[in-house]
């Protein structure tokens, strides 16, 4: 049996507990609500910020559109200027497209020719050295045309001239001439009938016996007397061509000495 005083105490405790629970729940609800949802002030601030951003972006976009339009106009005018400048340059020579094409084809033919010469061995190049002059003559003709003034043609002509000059320079080098020299190993008189006269007469040497002083003068280090050559001697065979002044002089000296000896 609960006494009234005890009952009163229990009721008060219950009320106190209730009070605490209600306060905690209400505070919690209020706090949770405040944390998950923005306040009106925050909303207002965000609205103000985003509105300012939007206005700035609209202004920037308008300016950018203006810039892009003027850049497009500038680009179009540059394209037009480039085209008209190129047309003016083409018209400076007063030549038709057909003539320009024909000129370019002539240049291409010369380029092929020079490239072919540049690929030759020294022996072959020496044999065809006259062609270098022919190419030069044709190039000189092309240089006289107004079309030679066009940049693309001018560049090709300069390159061609450099190649031709390179071929000439190669031919003029002492090493080039040295590389052309043939050699001949002397056989016996008994078997081969080798003497300077007979060697010079051979088809694959000079095909001309009168060229013997060339072999003598080209081998002065090992031939003192042109009448005496020994079996096994390796003689240099200088490049074919008319006798030089020195070779002719040596020949005259030889015959003079010989005729003086005979007397």
């Amino acid at each position, binding site marked *: 049996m609960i006494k009234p005083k005890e009952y009163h105490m229990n*009721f*008060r405790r219950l009320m106190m507990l*209730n009070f605490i629970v209600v306060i905690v729940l*209400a505070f919690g609800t209020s706090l949770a609500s405040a944390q998950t949802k923005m306040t009106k002030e925050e*909303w207002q601030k965000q609205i103000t910020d985003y509105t300012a951003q939007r206005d700035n972006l609209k202004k920037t976009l308008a300016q950018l559109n203006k810039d892009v339009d003027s*850049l497009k106009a*500038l680009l179009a005018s540059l394209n037009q200027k*480039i085209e008209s400048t190129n047309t003016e340059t083409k018209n400076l020579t007063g030549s038709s497209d057909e003539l320009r094409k024909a000129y370019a084809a002539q240049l291409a033919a010369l380029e092929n020719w020079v490239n072919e010469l540049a690929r030759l061995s020294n022996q072959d190049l020496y044999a065809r050295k006259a062609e270098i002059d022919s190419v030069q003559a044709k190039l000189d003709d092309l240089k006289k045309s107004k079309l030679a003034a066009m*940049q693309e043609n001018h560049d090709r002509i300069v390159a061609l001239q450099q190649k031709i000059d390179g071929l000439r320079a190669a031919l003029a080098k002492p090493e080039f001439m040295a590389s052309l020299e043939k050699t001949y190993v002397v056989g016996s008189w008994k078997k081969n009938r080798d003497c300077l006269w007979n060697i010079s007469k051979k088809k694959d040497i000079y095909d001309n016996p009168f060229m013997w002083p060339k072999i003598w003068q080209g081998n002065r280090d090992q031939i003192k007397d042109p009448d005496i050559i020994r079996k096994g001697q390796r003689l240099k065979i200088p490049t074919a061509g008319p006798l030089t002044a020195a070779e002719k002089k040596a020949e005259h000296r030889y015959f003079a000495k010989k005729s003086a000896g005979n007397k």
Partner: protein
Amino acid sequence: MKRALKLYLGAAFLALAFVVVGCSSGPSEDELAQLEALKAEVASLQKEVNAKQAEKEGLQKQIADKQAELAAAMKEQDATRERLKSQQ
């Protein structure tokens, strides 16, 4: 007993105050939607601005290239004139 009742009423009032403060100070649904729309508009404008900026930069580069091309074309023309003069 009376005191307990007062206390209870006070607590209830306090709790109500908390709830009222917690629930009634935020923006309305319409206002939130307005903010979201504004955010979306800003994002879209930002995208547009970036694209235009890129287009502008591309055009500036093209113009620089074309200016160089024009200068080369004019130089070529002058050189051609000079060569033609020297041919005469």
